[in-house]
C-alpha cells in the first residue's frame, strides 16, 4: 500500500473528521478532554455511585464552560513574531540552526496537540517506552514487620488518614525523628517490648538518612507511661524503601492529575444562582439552571431560550 511514509497510529479515541460536517454539539472534543478526562485508570476503579449524575446535555455545558475558562484570550488571536526581529540585525548569532531545531522553532503545535500525540504513541504496544508501564498508583511498600494495609489497595486511606493511622500494629517501632515532636515525649518512656525491637527491625543504615533533629527533649512527666497517652508512631521507612520511592519514574501528565476522591464525590455539589451568585435554590423549568429566588428567576427567564417557546 502506498501511504507516502505516513504511519497511522492507533488512537485511543475517535477524532473528528477533517473538513466539516453537521454534528450535534454535545460531543467531547480534544481540547476539552485534556481538561476533564473521561476515562482514566485512576478514576476507573472507584465506585461511581455519585449523588449528582448529570445528563449528557449538562455535561456538555460544563465541559464547554470549562474550555472557555481555559482560554488565553476571549477571541482567537494570532500574534506573529514581529518581523523586524526575524533577521538577526543587532542580535548575537548563535550559529546556524540545525534542521531539528528549525523544525522545533517552526512548529505551531499547541499543548493539546502534543498531548494527543503522546496519548496516541503511548497506546501503541511499545516495550521500549517504560513511561507507560507505570501503574496508576505506583506505591511500593515492603514492610514485612507491620500489618499496615498497603496504601495502593485502599483508596479510602486518602483522607481517612486518622482511622487507618490508629489501626497500626501496636508493636510498631517508634523511631526518634526530628519530624515529630510527639515522638520525643513518648520515646523516653516506651514500654520494654518496644525498646527491644529496633535492633532487628530497623537497619542501621536508616539512621543517617534523615537527621535526628536537635530539638530539646521535654521533661518527663509521670503521665507519660499511661498506656492511654502513649502515641503510636508510624515506622520510618527504611533506606531502601526511600531510595525506591525516589527512584520511581515520573508519571505521565494524565496520571498526575489529582483525583476526585471518594469523600468529595459523596458530598452534594454546591449550586449557585446563575444571576447573583447566591445559593442556587430554585431550578428553572426551562433549562434546569439554578437561581436563588423569584426575582433572579425573572431575570434568568428573560434570556432562557433552551426550550423552544419557553
Amino acid at each position, binding site marked *: 500500500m502506498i501511504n507516502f511514509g505516513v504511519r497511522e497510529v492507533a488512537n485511543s479515541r475517535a477524532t473528528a473528521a477533517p473538513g466539516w460536517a453537521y454534528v450535534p454539539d454535545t460531543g467531547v472534543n480534544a481540547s476539552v478532554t485534556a*481538561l476533564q478526562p473521561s476515562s482514566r485508570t485512576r478514576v476507573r476503579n472507584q465506585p461511581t455511585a455519585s449523588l449528582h449524575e448529570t445528563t449528557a446535555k449538562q455535561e456538555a455545558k460544563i465541559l464547554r464552560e470549562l474550555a472557555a*475558562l481555559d482560554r488565553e484570550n476571549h477571541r482567537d488571536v494570532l500574534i506573529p513574531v514581529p518581523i523586524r526581529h526575524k533577521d538577526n540585525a543587532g542580535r548575537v548569532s548563535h550559529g546556524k540552526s540545525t534542521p531539528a531545531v528549525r523544525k522545533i522553532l517552526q512548529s505551531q503545535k499547541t499543548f493539546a496537540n502534543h498531548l494527543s500525540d503522546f496519548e496516541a504513541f503511548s497506546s501503541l504496544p511499545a516495550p521500549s517506552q517504560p513511561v507507560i508501564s507505570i501503574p496508576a498508583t505506583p506505591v511500593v511498600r515492603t514492610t514485612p514487620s507491620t500489618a499496615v494495609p498497603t496504601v495502593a489497595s485502599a483508596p479510602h486511606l*486518602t483522607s481517612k488518614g486518622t482511622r487507618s493511622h490508629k489501626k497500626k500494629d501496636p508493636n510498631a517501632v517508634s523511631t526518634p525523628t526530628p519530624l515529630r515532636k510527639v515522638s520525643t515525649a513518648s520515646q523516653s518512656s516506651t514500654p520494654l517490648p518496644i525498646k527491644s525491637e529496633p535492633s532487628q527491625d530497623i537497619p542501621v543504615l536508616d539512621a543517617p538518612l534523615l537527621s535526628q533533629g536537635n530539638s530539646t527533649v521535654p521533661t518527663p512527666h509521670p503521665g507519660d507511661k499511661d498506656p492511654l497517652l502513649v502515641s503510636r*508512631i508510624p515506622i520510618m*521507612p527504611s533506606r531502601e524503601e526511600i531510595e525506591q520511592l525516589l527512584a520511581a519514574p*515520573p*508519571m*505521565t501528565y494524565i*496520571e498526575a492529575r489529582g483525583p476526585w476522591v471518594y469523600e468529595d464525590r459523596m458530598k452534594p455539589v*454546591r449550586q449557585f444562582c446563575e444571576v447573583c451568585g447566591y445559593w442556587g435554590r430554585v431550578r428553572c423549568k426551562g433549562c434546569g439552571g439554578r437561581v436563588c429566588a423569584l426575582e433572579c428567576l425573572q431575570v434568568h427567564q428573560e434570556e432562557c431560550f433552551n426550550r423552544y417557546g419557553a
Partner: protein
Amino acid sequence: MAPPRRTKSSGPPPPAKTLVLDNGAYTIKAGVVQADAETPAPSIIPNCLARDRDKHTYIGSQLSSCNDFSEIVFRRPVEKGYLVNWEAEKEIWEQEFFDPKAKLHCNPSETSLILTEAPNALPALQTNCDQVVFEEFGFARYLRVTAPTLNAYTDIQSFFKSPARDPNSTAALPAEILMLIDSGYSHTTITPLLLGRPIQSAIRRLDVGGKLLTNYLTRLLSLRQYDMRNDTYLVNEIKEATCYISQDFKADMEKTWKGPKGDRRPVYETGDGIAKDYVLPDYHGRTKGYVRDHDPNAATKLKELVKGKALGASEDVLTLRNERFTVPELLFSPTDIGLRQSGIAQQVMDSLSALPMGLWPGFLANIVVVGGNSNIEGFVFRLQMEIRSLAPAECIVRVARPADPIVNTWQGGANLAKEEATLANLSVTKQEYEEYGAGWVAKKFGSR
C-alpha cells in the same frame, strides 16, 4: 612535551556565570548568579507577546511601556505550565538575555543555565527543550529541573513561625523533607520532596490556576456588570486587588445576598465590609484602577459632582460582592464550576496516601506554598485549617508561605547555582550532550 591529559572529572573549567531561569507561564523570573558575587534580585519579565488596540506588539518586558491595556491580547509560549511554542519563547529570550543591550545580557557559551519546568512534562517537549538549549543557544552547561525541586534549596524553616530557631544556625541545603504546593498561573501542583528530590509517584496536579480564576471572574463580571471579556489584563488586576479566601464561606455568602423582593437585607449594601468598589482606569487620566470601600451613595454624589463638567470627570465603578470570595474558592472546591477534582487540601492528603506512613508527620509539618495564588489573602490560613481537619490528629500541621512566594523558586535556583559541586553533579555540559546525545540527557534529568 604534551601537557598531561586531563582526567574526565576535571574537564574544562566550569562557567563562572549561571543564568537562573524560572520560566513560568505568566512571568519569567531570571537573574545571572556568580559564585563569588552577591545574589542579585531577579527580574520579573512577562512571558508573553502582547498586542494592544493599536496593533503594536510588545515582547516580554516591553509590556511595562504599555499604558493602554484595554483590549490587549496575549500569546504565551508556555501553555499549561509547559514550554510549547519555541518560536515565541526564543523571541523573548533573545530580547531579554542575548541582546547586547539587555539588562541580563549573557553569552550562552560561557554561561550555565538552570531552567525550570513543571512536573510531569511530556517527553517530547522536554527533548525539544534540551535540543534548543544546546543546539540553538549553545549553553555551556544546562540543568533542567522541576520548579518545585528548587524550593528545597531555600531555607524553608525560616518561613515557619514556630518553633523558634537559633538565629545563628544555618540551614543545610537541600531541605530534608518538604511538601511543596506551587499554585501558579496554569495549575497547582503538590510535590513531596525528600532530600531535595521529588517523589514522583506522589505528585498531584490540580487544574486550577490563576488563569482559570481570572477567566471565572471575567465571566461573573461580564454576566452581572460590564462586559470585561476583552479586558482580562484588567480583570487580573481586579482579582489581585480584591479577591480573598473566605474563612467562613456560608456566612460571607449570607452577608452578600440582597434578599428576596420585599425583604431586602440591610447588610447587603455594605456586605459588612465585603462589598468593595473597583474604580476602573479610563487610560487617559487614570492608567491604573484602585479599590475603595463600597459607598452606596456614590452614584448620586458623582452625579452632583460632574454636573455640567467635562466627560473625563466621571468614573466607572465595578462593585464586587460575592465575586471577591467565590472566585478563589475554586482552589478549595473545584466542583463549584463542575471541575471533577478535589480541592488542594484533599490533594495533599491524596499525595500523602502514596507515601509510607512514617513520612506523613514530616511532610505535614513542613508544607510550603509558593506561586502567585498564595498571595491571595487568607490562603495559608484556610489551607492549614483544611489540612488540619483531614490529617491524623497526632500530626503537627504547619503551612507557611515565603516572604515572596513568586520568586522563591528562583531563589532556590540561585542558591543551587552557588553550590558548584552539587550543580556540576546535576547538570549536563555541552560536551556531554554532543558525546552521549539527547536520549542520555533526557535520562539523566528524568532520573532526578
